[in-house]
């Protein structure tokens, strides 16, 4: 029981995770079957249109099916497919909600908040969508795109750019595509821009995160022998040199920064590898947000996270502003939500070649800003 107690939990619930996937497919109407409170959070976080049954206490007492049918009937006037996303209370009362729509009028996604965190909800959403592959569709799927990710737009643009340079078509983008395209079937092969958000669709050829990119390109070359990999490999080499050039310049003046990393496992490992490779950094704290992390411990209790960070006295925090605010003595670069440290509107990538460069650029600017602030102190 002890591990469930938490102070300031830093990661959203399963329902929010499921919603982030469903809402990524335009043309699919997502109805949150729950209260206004359950609707409010994903609506404000994801910034996409969502519907809700806005359940009231009386409906819980007398059953929610009629209210759900009422909203489904109204939304179905759009002639668009519907996904019903279940929340904690209707999941507890034991109504047969899935059975209320036997004609397939809606996809039922049972991802109540108490079922776990974001990643559990993502898994449930993908399973509920029952996505099939279509061997007639030539190309690869892009996986790991989530509306919850600070970098989703930039990552998607960068992955499409790189695949276009290689001459490999993109088939389905998980999860930012049209629902119509999704239903045509996914390609047999998939690459990921963020392996911590996994659809499980298609055979995985690897990640596009900078340290993994060359190996993924090798796998793509085997699967797509006509693709032209050389331009991207040349670009990777040039980016690698550039990143060394600027980190060398920093290291001529300063000591390697001690770094604490807190994010989903994929970005955390990425950040650790980059900081070790280009700065020779010591990275004593590497913590995951996702409970299914395989190589690093998952901690979502902010008090525990900040305790570990404070103990290692880092020069740089790579995480969210939860950590940054709790330990303001370090420089900070946001790699996981929320990042309230800056206004961020543009499509910044963290994946691919531009993502690697952008990350190094962000790290250097954050470190130099902090150094400047320290020097200005009286």
């Amino acid at each position, binding site marked *: 029981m002890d591990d469930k*107690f938490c102070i300031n939990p830093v990661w*959203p619930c399963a329902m929010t995770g499921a919603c982030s996937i469903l809402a990524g497919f335009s043309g699919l109407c997502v109805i949150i079957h729950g209260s206004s*409170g359950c609707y409010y*959070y994903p*609506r404000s976080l994801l910034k996409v249109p969502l519907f809700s049954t806005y359940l009231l206490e009386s409906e819980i007492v007398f059953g929610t099916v009629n209210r759900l049918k009422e909203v489904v009937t109204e939304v179905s006037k759009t002639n668009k497919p519907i996904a019903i996303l279940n929340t904690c209370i209707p999941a*507890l*009362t034991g109504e047969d909600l899935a059975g209320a729509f036997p004609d397939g009028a809606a996809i039922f996604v049972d991802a109540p908040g108490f079922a776990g965190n974001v990643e559990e909800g993502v898994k449930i959403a993908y399973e509920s969508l029952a996505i099939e592959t279509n061997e007639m569709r030539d190309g690869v799927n892009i996986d790991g795109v989530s509306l919850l990710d600070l970098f989703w737009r930039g990552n998607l643009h960068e992955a499409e750019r790189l695949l276009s340079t290689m001459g490999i078509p993109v088939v389905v983008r998980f999860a930012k595509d049209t629902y119509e395209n999704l239903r045509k079937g996914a390609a047999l092969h998939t690459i990921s821009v963020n392996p911590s958000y996994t659809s499980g669709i298609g055979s995985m050829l690897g990640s596009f995160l900078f340290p993994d990119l060359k190996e993924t390109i090798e796998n793509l070359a085997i699967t797509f022998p006509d693709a032209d990999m050389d331009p991207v490999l040349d670009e990777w080499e040039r980016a690698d040199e550039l990143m060394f050039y600027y980190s060398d310049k920093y290291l001529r003046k300063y000591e390697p920064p001690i770094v604490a990393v807190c994010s989903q496992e994929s970005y955390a490992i990425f950040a650790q590898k980059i900081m070790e490779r280009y700065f020779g950094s010591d990275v004593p704290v590497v913590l995951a947000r996702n409970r299914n992390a395989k190589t690093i411990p998952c901690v979502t209790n902010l008090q525990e996270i900040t305790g570990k960070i404070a103990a290692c006295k880092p020069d740089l925090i790579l995480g969210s502003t939860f950590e940054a*605010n709790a330990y303001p003595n370090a420089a900070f670069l946001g790699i996981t939500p929320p990042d309230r440290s800056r206004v961020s509107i543009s499509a910044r990538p963290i994946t691919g070649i531009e993502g690697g460069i952008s990350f190094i650029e962000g790290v250097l600017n954050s470190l130099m800003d902090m150094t400047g602030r320290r020097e200005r102190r009286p």
Partner: protein
Amino acid sequence: MAGCTLTGALSVACFIPGAVTVVHAPHGCAHQTFSMLHAMMNDAETKITPEIMVSGLSDKDVIFGGEGCLRQALDRAAEKKPDLIIVVTSCVPETIGDDCRAVCQEHAYAKQILYIPTSGFLGGSAKDGENSALIGLAGLAEPAEPIPGTVAIIGEKNLESEVEENYAEVTRLLHLLDLTVTVRFCRNADVATLKKLGTASCFILRDDRSSDAGRELGKKFNRRVIREFPRGLSGAITFLRETGTACGISREKIDAAVSSENAWQEKKLAGFSKLRGKSVFLGAEPLEGIFAVAREAIERIGMTESPDGVEVKPPFYLPVGVSGTMKMLYLWRRRILHG
């Protein structure tokens, strides 16, 4: 759009230094509010985020009961020896039948535990949660003799990004009457301060969201209650007269304050003289009462309203006093003069 009672209650309970808040709920429910508090406090350039302790109900607990989780969370909260432990609940413990009140009453720290049965959406809306928390916390204060020249502010919207700016506008007006705010109930006031609520000579509500609490508290302490912060320009004058009267300020002093305020408003409006004669179109009213504030400003500046006028956006919140009206007018001026 609005959150559930949990968000409303936490938006009050989390702003009491020395107190800790325990949420009996799954992690995700508490994360929602914590995340919102974090966002709002960064907007307000305050980097300190309140601690929210969560019992962390899981899928197993919803089957076998979650009272043990709450008990354990209270143990952990009591270890910190806080002045007060505030317990709020989401809809999940309500549905599975946890007897949270009994768990709180039986706990060794019971005398310093305040249980607020919010019950997520089963208890109503965020507004209901705010009122429940305010009424529950008012139970800490005993009736007392009013201290002349003091007021308490009740129900400030802690999640409002302009909360401090609105407070500054209200205190500016109160200063004209030589009145001092002694209790901000509940914003950054510790338990000892909250207990002094009964000493304020008058209560000022932020707005009608906290009217339920205002009614209860006014009755309990036998105090006059000003129902909201001043709305726009003439609202500032009305506020001065009502608050001054409620606090027993002399007619002469109130008139002097009004005179001073009128001069201040004229000075501030002079900055918009380039808008005189311009025609604007307000579109749809986002919230009842906004158009009244907007139309008064239009008239005072010498503008006109017409469907063919430049479309300006009325704010989605009620502008507080002169300061709030100025913020609206700056946006209009940019639109009218610069497109």
